[in-house]
């Protein structure tokens, strides 16, 4: 992350393959929106304005994964127009839920989903932006967290390193006083492997973390996988990793097993655990 950008930085918000939820987090900042527009020039943000721009950008927030040939060309072009490229959300950071197709028979899935699959031109894989161009910073989550987005923009203004901790969700759970849903509740919680930033929302409501913020630094997947596997069938444990961040390297092995098993790629037949 570089030091402070110019007086009124030119900011763009663009999307590739995604649901738009992360972009909407920016609109959800509500009372901060006007102050933000006074400090940043939003030159591209189709969700909010019909004003269009081709750049260049001081800061570009990129949502979505690279899922089509056009998107691949677009992201390479956008990178050339951008000083700081920030990926936002699990799709842009890790390929998203749609990356489950990376282990599947893509034409077969396309045919199953669309009535006229011939109209659809997509790549066989859904991949993170960082597999194609350099990424300067990432905001995790599905969707991203508004406080983290605000921190990123504030840090850009002030010139400090954004305070985006790499620690596990567990710390925030414990600071909040949540009772551990794994130890006390026996739920298969991925919080110990997952990067913080959400504020430990799910465990605060008694629900296990499903890693929508993706793996943290030092995510020891084999250890937790093995521990959960003492009480759950392996296929169920594998499936925990086949979510929004399935394609992120620490989650890939169990996610791949889950997808292949569900689709009989390993000869085990459909949903062997069902």
């Amino acid at each position, binding site marked *: *992350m570089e*030091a*402070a950008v110019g007086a009124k930085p030119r900011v763009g918000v663009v999307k590739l393959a995604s649901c738009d939820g992360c972009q909407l987090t920016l609109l959800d900042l509500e009372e*901060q929106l006007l*102050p*933000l527009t006074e*400090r940043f020039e939003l030159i591209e943000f189709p969700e909010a304005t019909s004003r269009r721009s081709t750049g260049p950008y001081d800061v570009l927030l990129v949502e979505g994964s690279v899922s089509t040939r056009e998107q691949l060309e677009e992201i390479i072009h956008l990178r050339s127009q951008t000083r700081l490229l920030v990926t936002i959300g699990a799709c842009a950071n890790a390929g998203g839920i749609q990356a489950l197709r990376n282990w599947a028979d893509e034409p077969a899935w396309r045919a199953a989903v669309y009535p006229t699959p011939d109209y659809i031109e997509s790549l066989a894989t859904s991949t993170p932006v960082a597999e194609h161009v350099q990424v300067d910073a990432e905001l995790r989550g599905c969707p991203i967290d508004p406080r983290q987005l605000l921190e990123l*923009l*504030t840090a850009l*203004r*002030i*010139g*400090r*390193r954004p*305070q985006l*901790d*790499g*620690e*596990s969700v*567990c*710390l925030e759970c*414990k*600071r*909040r*006083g*949540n*009772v*551990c849903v*794994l*130890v*006390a*509740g026996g739920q298969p*919680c991925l*919080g*110990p*492997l997952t990067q913080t930033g959400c504020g430990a929302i799910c465990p605060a409501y*008694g629900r296990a973390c499903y890693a929508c913020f993706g793996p*943290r*630094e*030092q*995510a*020891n997947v*084999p*250890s*937790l996988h*093995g*521990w959960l596997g003492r009480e759950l069938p392996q296929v169920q444990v594998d499936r925990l990793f086949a979510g929004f961040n399935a394609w992120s390297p620490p989650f890939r092995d169990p996610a791949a097993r889950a997808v292949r098993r569900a689709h009989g790629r390993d000869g085990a037949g459909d949903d062997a655990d069902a």
Partner: protein
Amino acid sequence: MVTAAPQRPAFLPRGELDRLLDLLHEDGRTVIGPIARDGAIVYDEIRSAAELPAGWTDEQAPGRYRLNRTDSPRLFNYTVGPQGWKRYTQPPRVPLATATRDGATVSFEPAVSEPQRLAFLGVRACEIAALLVQDRVLAAGPFADDDFRARRANAMVIAVQCTRAGSTCFCTSMGTGPEVTDGYDLVLTELDDGFVVGAGSQAGERLLSQLAPAAASKAQQQAVTDGVAAARATMADQGVAAEGLPARLMDRLDHPRWAEVADRCLACANCTMVCPTCFCTSVGNVSDLDGATNQTERRWDSCFNGDFARVAGGNFRPRRQDRYRQWLTHKFATWHDQFGTSGCVGCGRCIAWCPVGIDVREELAAIAPPYEEPAAPPPAIRPPSLDALVPLPMVSYSPSVAQEPAFRADTSVATVRAVAGETADTFMLWLQPDDEGLLAARPGQFVMVDQPGFSPVPISVSRVADGALWLTVRAAGAATQAFTTLQPGAQVGLRGPLGRGWPIDRALGRDVVIVAGGIGLAPLRPALDAVLAQRDRFGDVLLAYGARTPADRLYLPELDAWAHAGVEVAQIVDRAGPEWLGQVGVVTQLLDRRDWKGRQAVAFVCGPERMMQATVSTLRTAGITRRRIFVSMERHMDCGVGICGHCQIGPFFVCRDGPVFTVAELGDLFGREGM
């Protein structure tokens, strides 16, 4: 808490517990006690005894905790839950200060700590031990945490005896329980129909006399003894061999089990969060969009986090095994050196709440089992304890300033006189502090430089002159980069002087060998200034300076000046262009054929740790002993005063005990990977 003479125990029927709560409420106290919530016993506000977890009991095992309903009328029939009392004595988030910026002007307003009056109800023996450990850590050192002190002073302790123990409990082996013996105002032991009550302080006596309960019968008193004995008996076979454990553990820093446990450890930090004595914190900033108003907040951090030991340019504990070793050795070994007590109170929380059931008792037994008798323990190569760490004599090199720099906990303002480039990636920050106490900085000490909205940066003082501090800074991160944009007249915050610097006195009458690598010359320049101020009081003085390239050398004009002022200046660079006529290679080459044997020379060394390691080895070969070689260590520093925990190397807080150490003090830890 003033201890009173023990009074005859009394008996309070269970139905009258509310009278105790009423008295506490009348005393203006909020009562915090156990409640059953979300499947666990947690500590929260209690308004009446009806809220206590009647009939609940717990079942704990590594990585597992369950609450079970029973028909018992008892209110305290469980052991400890996930939360310790540190939640109330050292809360997860504490506002520290408001830092504001208005143009070039900055200000730092400390947050005011006005804790509620509390009463802790249901504090177990191990938890009292934990509070007493916290007292030593946060309130008994050279720097006391005022917020903690105020919270602790405002909390009354109403203890409850354990009459049963869980499978994860091991207070008996840590010597902290199960019997409550100290550190309480009142102590309750629950029987089937009520409580045997005793007072442990004058405040407790007053409460007890207001309650005016009947005396406990002999049978009731016997039930207390039996109950505690039952808890003790449960723990007979589930402890750790605590006797001699610190030395054994520090002997095993290279044990293969560290890597093996790291295969299981998630580095998720749960053990440190539930530990009632783990005290490490970090400071975060919440800023408005312009960085004009910045609230700083101190929050629980953990040595298992990736950023915990990170500095610009590297991480001192990158691997899980480094972090697990740091935690376990600190808790069970170096804590003794630092605070005269174990960091573990045997509550077993780290065992139950580890998501993958790692049991410290098993790890300790595998890594540091008791030595087999009668064979003598192998000769220990271990670092000396803090007892051996004596204050180094340090002279101020600006004689006009008082010898003893006063310690300053608050951030004061300093005005930028100039910012000037030094080399391609370093610059000089020239600061005039409002607080003249900062000018008492001695050679090798450092200051924390604070800009609103940024994390404070530790910077060594590279000269004190003309009422100002000179800091030589490498633009390594965002905060240091931001210094480069400061204009003359702008303000920053300063805190210090901090740490233990170069002991110039130790070099009086002796040869002085100063070895610097790169920007490592910055903290050594004040030592040179001090020596040159009284040049005739020292023997031969050598400066051996190594840098990456000729252009990376600091203080070029001064290198010549020193050479003319009676210092032998030897220089070497890693890479040179055609303009360089000097030596090419590593700094140790400048020392290779030297001989200080029998001369009692003193060496001051600063540079990257690898460079210092090689240098120390060369200096020792040349006849300078480990006690006369001083090195300045770099670690992640947040607080600068030994309470945030980031900068530890074995028993040392680098910020407080160092950054300057003798190589003998660091012993086996010097240059060791993952410390």
